[in-house]
């Protein structure tokens, strides 16, 4: 009896083993199935390649905690990457390019947040609409062509090293720390939890929660802009279909990490584990020469399974 009362207010606990077990099992499976998996080079490769996903999954965690969803993230990332590439190619200025990408992300975040909080449109439909808009704009801006001729200094953002550590790892670690502090050590983070769990309490406390919700979606857009910089640097080009469907990997990572789609329960370290799990899955299947289409199907099945577990947990409690 006392056991139950102890464990019920902490829904994070049962989530810990879930994603960790999945990650452990996958790692064990791949290290047996393909000899190259456990090499130091490959492991650091997994981390480097997971950073772009992490940049999307971090804000997605906050958005999902507010009982929201952002389906437009992949398309916004694509559009931001194209805008960045176009600006950098014509002005040779990384700062202007990054400003353009962030501007695109913030603008879409503002629209998403406005639709969701002020007009009260269900988030999955609002962001599905802006997904269409961003995808269309990406085709219009680029005329359906790749943007090439990216200067060398942009590539440095992805391939460079500082003190022996790859740049993407440093960027990823920095943003992870930022989101950790933001969620657990600021008033903003507390409000984000309340946005999903108890919105009425915010109203009664006199918090202007609609503005707060807009800010959460704008944070998502801004991070899509940051991810666009890494993406452009990695591909050395802007491509009109580059990141289509990437929001799905992000949602998958968040769901795997034990963040609930109801009641505002989120766990930022779980999201990190979820991102690495998705990265390991993709990397391992790559090494086994499994086509990317099957990888997508596997991740889809994993998400459904994770949500099923999530539902089981919330029904028990």
């Amino acid at each position: 009896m006392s056991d139950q009362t102890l464990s019920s207010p902490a829904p994070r606990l049962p989530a810990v083993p879930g994603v960790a077990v999945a990650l452990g099992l996958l790692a064990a499976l791949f290290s047996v199935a393909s000899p190259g998996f456990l090499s130091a080079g490959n492991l650091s490769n997994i981390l480097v390649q997971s950073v772009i996903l992490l940049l999307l999954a971090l804000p997605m965690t906050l958005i999902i905690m507010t009982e929201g969803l952002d389906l437009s993230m992949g398309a916004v990332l694509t559009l931001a990457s194209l805008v960045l590439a176009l600006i950098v190619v014509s002005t040779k200025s990384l700062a202007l390019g990054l400003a353009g990408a962030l501007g695109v992300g913030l603008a879409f975040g503002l629209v998403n947040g406005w639709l969701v909080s002020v007009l009260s449109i269900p988030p999955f439909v609002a962001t599905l609409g802006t997904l269409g808009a961003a995808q269309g704009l990406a085709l219009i801006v680029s005329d359906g062509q790749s943007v090439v001729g990216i200067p060398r200094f942009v590539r440095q953002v992805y391939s460079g090293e500082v003190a022996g550590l790859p740049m993407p790892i440093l960027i990823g670690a920095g943003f992870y720390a930022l989101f950790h502090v933001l969620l657990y050590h600021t008033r903003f983070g507390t409000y984000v939890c309340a946005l999903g769990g108890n919105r009425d309490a915010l109203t009664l406390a006199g918090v202007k929660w609609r503005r707060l919700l807009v800010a959460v979606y704008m944070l998502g857009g801004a991070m899509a802009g940051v991810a666009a910089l890494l993406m452009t640097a990695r591909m050395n080009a802007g491509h009109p279909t580059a990141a289509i469907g990437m929001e799905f990997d992000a949602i998958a990572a968040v769901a795997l990490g034990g963040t609930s789609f109801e009641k505002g329960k989120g766990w930022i370290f779980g999201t990190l584990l979820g991102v690495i799990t998705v990265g390991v899955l993709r990397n391992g299947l790559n090494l086994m020469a499994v086509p990317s289409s099957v990888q997508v199907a596997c991740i889809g099945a994993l998400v459904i399974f994770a949500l099923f577990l999530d539902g089981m947990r919330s029904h028990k409690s």
Partner: protein
Amino acid sequence: MSIAGDISSSAPRFHLSKDVEQLLYRLLAAGLLCVALSVMTDAFLTTNNILNVLRQASLLFFLAAGLTLVILTGGLDLSVGANIGLSACLAATVIKVTGSPVLGTLAGLGAGCAVGICNGLMVAKLRIPSFIATYGMLWVLHGITYYYMAGETIHGFPPGFRQIGSGYFLGIPIPVYLMIGFLLAGTIFAQRTVWGQQIYAIGANPVAARLTGIPVDRRLILVYAFSGAMAGVASIVFLARLNSAEGDIGEAMTLPAIAAVLIGGASLFGGVGSVFGTFVGALILTLVLNGMNLLAVNASWQPLVTGVIVVFAVWLDMRGRRRT
């Protein structure tokens, strides 16, 4: 007491007239679009183009009609576009292997329906929110279809089969007859059968529906199965029209289908909407896209416009709710 009595007695009548009023507005919008387009372009008011609009609207309607039932229960099916891809490729393979269009059609419909049942089980039995369950299903289906097709195209079907998509009867395309058939069947099912009314009841108030003894889980599975089967129908007509199947067939159809349902006056919160409304919605959206085509607007603008229309339609619905 008397006030409560007044409200409960007057509310249903008021709602009915408001629904009809809303529908008339939509028909008026469709009419105005037609007038505007025939003034702005010479090509709009030709027999060929009108038939073309109707045929395109019918493809959209098949998908949107099944989706209407799902949205009536307060759910959403994001997997319909990917479902078309899988069903079409499977049907194409069966036709190629067996040489029998009948078997191929059955395979396509069966695959669509099976996917729908899986969606229904996830929503009704596993209690996963419908938009995220069907979103996961979308990527599972994409993955399977892309892997199976491996970038190949299957094309060249028997002429008899192709009639379903590109044939004419009495000068009117065959898909248009199918559309009218499904429109009648869907309207009768939703408005005049017990099951149809139960679907409205589930969307309006799931808890009350359960308490009155409606088998909610079974009706939900039925609704998603319908949606899947209608994706199967759309895939067959699509296949017959295009005369070829590729992995990404139907991929871009999900957003327009949702748009058609929402323009048609259905509410994402369930319990409000009709198959006829969706028919009008499909017509309006097709008119807009056809008009953009005729006015030589770059096709890249189409997803943008569709996205804006979706958001606008939901906003109208939300505004209406806040007033009542």
